C-alpha cells in the first residue's frame, strides 16, 4: 500500500519533531513511492541507488518542508532534482536496457503521481531532445546507436542531450 498525502504529511510533521518510529514508516512509504515514481525512467539495476539517493536528500533537507504545504510535491521536486542529476552522471553501461517490467497495480494516488510525474518533464522538451535523452541516458544506447536509430547526426545527438538536460533542470518545479 502507498500512503496518501495526509498520512505522509502527518508522518513528516512528527519526523521533524524527532519521532523515530514515524520517520521509519515515512521513509518506508517514501521508498515505495519513489520506486513507482522512477519506474521506466531508470534502468532497474540503478533504481535502488537513485531511491537511496533521494532518501538521503530527504533526510538532509527535511527542514525545508513546511507543514503548511503539501508533502508529495516537495518530495517530487527533490526526486526530479536528483533524477536530472543522475541523468547527467549516467554514461553508457552494457546492461542499461530497460525491460518492459510492470510495477504494482495503480492506486488512488495515481492522479497525484501523474501530475508530478517525470513524463511531465519530457513533454516540455522538443521531441528530438527527449528522444535522444531517453535512448542514451535511460536506455543506455551509445551516441552512434542513438544517431542511427533517430537519424540525427552524432554531433546533433550530443548537442540535443546537452540542451535537453539543461532544459530539464529548469523545468523541475515548473512542469506539472
Amino acid at each position, binding site marked *: 500500500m502507498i500512503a496518501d498525502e495526509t498520512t505522509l504529511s502527518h508522518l513528516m510533521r512528527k*519526523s*521533524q*519533531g*524527532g*519521532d*523515530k518510529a514515524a*520517520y*521509519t514508516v515515512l*521513509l*518506508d512509504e517514501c*521508498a*515505495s513511492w519513489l*520506486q513507482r515514481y522512477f519506474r521506466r525512467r531508470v534502468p532497474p539495476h540503478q533504481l*535502488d541507488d537513485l*531511491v*537511496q539517493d533521494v*532518501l*538521503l*536528500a530527504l*533526510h*538532509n*533537507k*527535511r*527542514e*525545508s*518542508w*513546511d*507543514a*503548511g*504545504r*503539501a508533502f508529495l*510535491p*516537495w518530495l*517530487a*521536486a*527533490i526526486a*526530479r*532534482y536528483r533524477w536530472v542529476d543522475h541523468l547527467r552522471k549516467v554514461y553508457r553501461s552494457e546492461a542499461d536496457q530497460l525491460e518492459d517490467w510492470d510495477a504494482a497495480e495503480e492506486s488512488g494516488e495515481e492522479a497525484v503521481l501523474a*501530475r*508530478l510525474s517525470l513524463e511531465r518533464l519530457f513533454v516540455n522538451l522538443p521531441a528530438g531532445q527527449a528522444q535522444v535523452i531517453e535512448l542514451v541516458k535511460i536506455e543506455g544506447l551509445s551516441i552512434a546507436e542513438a544517431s542511427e536509430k533517430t537519424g540525427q547526426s552524432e554531433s546533433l545527438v550530443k548537442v540535443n542531450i546537452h540542451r535537453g538536460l539543461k532544459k530539464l*533542470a*529548469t523545468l*523541475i*518545479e*515548473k*512542469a*506539472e
Partner: protein
Amino acid sequence: MNRSTETLIARLADDLIPVRPMRSVSGLALVAAALAGTLFSVWLAGGFWSDMLAGDAAPFFYVTHGLLLVLGLASASAVVALARPSVGNRQDAPKWAAAMVAILPLTVLSIAFVTGAGTAGLVDEHSTHCLTSGIAASALAFVAMAYWLRRGAPVSTQTASLFAGIAAGAIGSFSYGLSCPIDSTAHLGLWHVLPVPICGILGRLILPRLIRW
C-alpha cells in the same frame, strides 16, 4: 525493498534529531533584517539626503527608488520560496518587476537618442561612485539570501541564484540611493539601476556552486 535500502532507512531513523522547519516568515524576516542593516550602514556612512526626507527631491527620484524597492522585495520573496522546493512552485513576479524597472534606463536612452543629445549627458562625475556604491551596498542582502538558499533545498538553482543577485542589487541600490543627492533622470535611470543587472549576473555566476546540494 532491498536490504541496503532497509539498512539505510534504519540508519537515517537512528540519526534523526528534531529540526525547525523553514517557514516563509523566517525567510522574509531575514530579508527585512538585511534591508534594515543595509539602510543603517548607509545612514552611518553619510546619512540620508535631507532634501529627499523633506520631500524636495524630483518625483523621478521617488519613482525610481519605489520601483527598486518593489523589485528587491519581489525577488527576495521569490528566493525565500525557491529555497523550499515544490512541483508547481512558479515564481514570475521578479520578471515583471524587473521589466518595470527596465523601463527607467530604456526611457533615459530613448530620450537621449530621440532628442539628439546622444550619450554625452548620460555620464556625470558621480556615475562610477554611485554604481560601485550600489553594488557594495548589496553585499549584506546577497549574503543573507545565499545563507537562506544554502540552508534550504533549492532545485531551480540557476533561477534562485539569478533572483538572489537581482534582489541584492535592488536592495543595495535602493538603500544607497537614499543618500545620493543627484536626482536627475539620466543619473537615476542609469547609474542607480545598473547595479541590479550586474548583481544579477554575479549571483547567477557565483551562487549555483555555493547552493548546489
